[in-house]
């Protein structure tokens, strides 16, 4: 399965954070590449969503849902700066 990109997570992230998150910046902890969430390589065919660095494959974001409860890890955003609402 080829990855999609961060645009595919726009709906669920907008739902969880109350704002568009695809323009939020990140810095890859593996290779220091910087970019915005929309550019991440996103895999959605598994039981959860995994976003990886386009250059070095390091995991940047993980999202799982169970009965309406979401769990999100953001290893690619050690100092998250939320975009304005």
């Amino acid at each position: 399965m080829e990855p999609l990109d961060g645009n595919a997570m726009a709906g669920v992230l907008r739902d969880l954070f109350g704002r568009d998150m695809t323009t939020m910046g990140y810095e890859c902890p593996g290779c220091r590449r910087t970019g915005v969430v929309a550019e991440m390589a996103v895999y959605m065919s598994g039981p959860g969503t995994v976003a990886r660095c386009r250059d070095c494959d390091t995991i940047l974001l993980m999202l799982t849902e169970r009965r309406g409860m979401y769990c999100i890890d953001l290893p690619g955003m050690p100092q998250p700066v939320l975009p304005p609402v």
Partner: protein
Amino acid sequence: MERAALLRRLTWQTGTVISTISETPRVKTIVLAVADWSGHRAGQHIDVRLTAPDGYQTERSYSIASAPEDDHLSITVERLDDGEVSPYLVDELREGDELEFRGPVGGHFVWDDDLGGPLFLVAGGSGVVPLRAMLRHHQAIGSKVPVRVLCSARSLELLIYRDELKELAADDLIDISITLTREPPRSWRGYRRRIDPAMLSTTGWATRKEPLTYICGPTAFVETAAAGLVALGHDARRIRTERFGGTGV
């Protein structure tokens, strides 16, 4: 606290199908009447949710095909044979049916006049959908930004919005190139191959024009187009991309 947090969430809403338009044998545009539509920006998408009788739910994202200025919200959907959602939307959905969705969403792959240009829009297959919204918006607001478009499709029959693209090409500011990768008609005078740097160079803008580029299509198509433009010397920060899982081009 709990209630305030919930109110801020993006809610699911319902649209009523006003009409469906066959674009190609596998692709339909679904026109929706939506009460209290909040408006959108060209390039955004919505998440469509289907619920089975047993309560099982699944959702997919579809680009908005209409301009913000159009009377109704519409999406254009390509039928994927192994899809969970698109076969229902393309084959089963009828006028008067209701469709559950949330949106609009996405703030990255959008174009407004303020962002300027010149614009280079590169579409593979149904990747033309959000770019069509941008072109309609461009026309609706009378934008003076010059636009070049490169569309790749397998054949003329499978080229989505074929007639509309022809009409748009009559606009002095809009220049449209088309490549047919599988079955070009014998008389076809456009390109007859998959996109490559030479084609991107001929159909797009010189690097010194510093174009703003939007590329949408299946993942492999987008990678080829984006890498080709960067290799030609274009600034990667002026290239916005959107990838989807679909059939090839």
